[in-house]
């Protein structure tokens, strides 16, 4: 299949639904992580947001192109999550959607470009750099891995495996870091030794993307 893999609206819908399932399942775990170095709401925030996205998807026309679908999902996150993760993930999905444009489907390269746009939006808004102990520590290596594999000729599905693995490594690497962005930064040295909740939810979201693309009928 290689570079010919094409991703469509149904794939994107499966991604978002899969993310919603993961957020519901992992809600208490994410909140516990946030209790340790934040304010104990990351799980409820993400769960509330993605549940609203699923509701939103039901309202949308089946013919909605994938880019529009992601923009709508991003707007829904912005409108329902609040906190730091709402604007960040909302902007990420909106930027990804706009990068994809109006086509009915897109290939792996366009997917990589979309996720680069997402990352760019997150960084522009939150000003976090890798190593600050945020979701960027999972998202940035994932996007980089995705681009490399796609450029090297891998299928979107295969490239996403590498992306998800890179995100996982990035997530684990947040544990020894001292936070310098977000609420965890207030802890100073006491943030060391805890895994970042936003990096963790990012892994779940990328895992859902990987599955959605692989399961393409």
């Amino acid at each position, binding site marked *: 299949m290689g570079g010919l893999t094409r991703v469509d609206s149904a794939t994107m819908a499966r991604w978002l639904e899969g993310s919603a399932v993961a957020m519901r399942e992992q809600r*208490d775990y994410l909140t516990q992580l946030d209790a340790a170095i934040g*304010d*104990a*709401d990351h*799980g409820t925030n993400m769960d*509330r947001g993605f549940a609203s996205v699923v509701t939103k998807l039901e309202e949308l026309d089946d013919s909605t192109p994938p880019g529009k679908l992601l923009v709508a999902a991003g707007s829904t996150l*912005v409108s329902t999550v*609040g906190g*730091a993760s709402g604007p960040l993930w909302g902007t990420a999905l909106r930027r990804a959607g706009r990068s994809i444009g109006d086509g009915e489907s897109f290939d792996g390269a366009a997917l990589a470009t979309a996720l680069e746009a997402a990352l760019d939006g997150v960084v522009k808004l939150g000003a976090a750099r890798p190593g600050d102990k945020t979701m960027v520590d999972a998202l940035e290596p994932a996007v980089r891995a995705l681009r490399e594999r796609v450029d090297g000729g891998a299928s979107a599905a295969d490239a996403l495996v590498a992306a998800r693995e890179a995100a996982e490594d990035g997530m684990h690497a947040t544990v020894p870091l001292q936070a310098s962005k*977000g609420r965890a930064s207030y802890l100073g040295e006491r943030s060391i030794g805890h895994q970042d909740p936003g990096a963790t939810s990012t892994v779940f979201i990328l895992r859902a993307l990987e599955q959605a693309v692989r399961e393409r009928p």
Partner: protein
Amino acid sequence: MSVATQTLKKFVNAPEDVVKESLAGLAAAHPDLVRVDFDNQVVLRKDAPVAGKVGLVSGGGSGHEPLHGGFVGRGMLDAACPGEIFTSPVPDQMLAATKAVDGGAGVLHIVKNYTGDVMNFQLAAELADDDGVAVESVLTNDDVAVEDSLWTAGRRGVGVTVIVEKLAGAKAEAGGSLEEVATVARRVNERGRSLGVALTSCVTPSAGAPTFEIGADEMEFGVGIHGEPGRRREKLKPASEIVAEMTEAILADLSPAAGATLLAFVNGLGGTPLIELYVVYNELAKQLAERGLTVARNLVGNYITSLEMAGVSITLVELDDELTTLWDAPVHTPALRWGA
């Protein structure tokens, strides 16, 4: 983690409804002062928009009551946007509030410096700008417990927010322009510093368990209003020593002019009885007098809380004539009222 309602030691129904139901109670108790737009989850001054007056919008996570909804009314806020417990509200709320209170003179956003609040208010301001409403934003970041640095999220906004809302609100009520009102707000923030100490943790309705564990003989020095850790965990001490350390830390950072005139604000975090807040105020007054500082105005009570946390915060603001006059100006809100 999720806990059945009946084991939560709280007067709530479903935990996820607590913010909405509390707003319904606020609306029912103060129909003369506020109205609540439940669709957008916004508390509005009853007569908003006030033509020709700068509109003041604030907001943030719930759980800090009376902040902010209790400060909506004449001489203070025009609107408050309450988020879920300890979660910043969303831009839609802020946009709806901004439009509802714009009386043609522009709108000031008062934002506590937390990543989520900052980003959500920023998105709202962009959207309001698209709609042709002039918006200025003021960030409060007065918590000296947190080290301020370009490379971090910076200081948290805490107690000074209440004072900013009062003084900027008075400036707007007196007919100040958007720029003038924003300038007052920024000046107050620059001239104000705070520090909090917790003896117990708060319990959020959704978590149902204490946000942090703390020993029976410990206190968290420099705690945040969401239960964020502070400078250090230490052994509990007599009130005189705690207040001396708090005063020291605040003044070291504020560096008021010799003989400066201060507003001293002793704030309960929710679970500390008023009898203790006055013990703290007594110690604070002594500390400041010893340093040759004059307390010209004061406020003692629960104004920016952290649910049922036992704890206290101290905010000191260096006054000048304009700020003192603005403090004395009439205010009529559910939680703060004088001259009216």
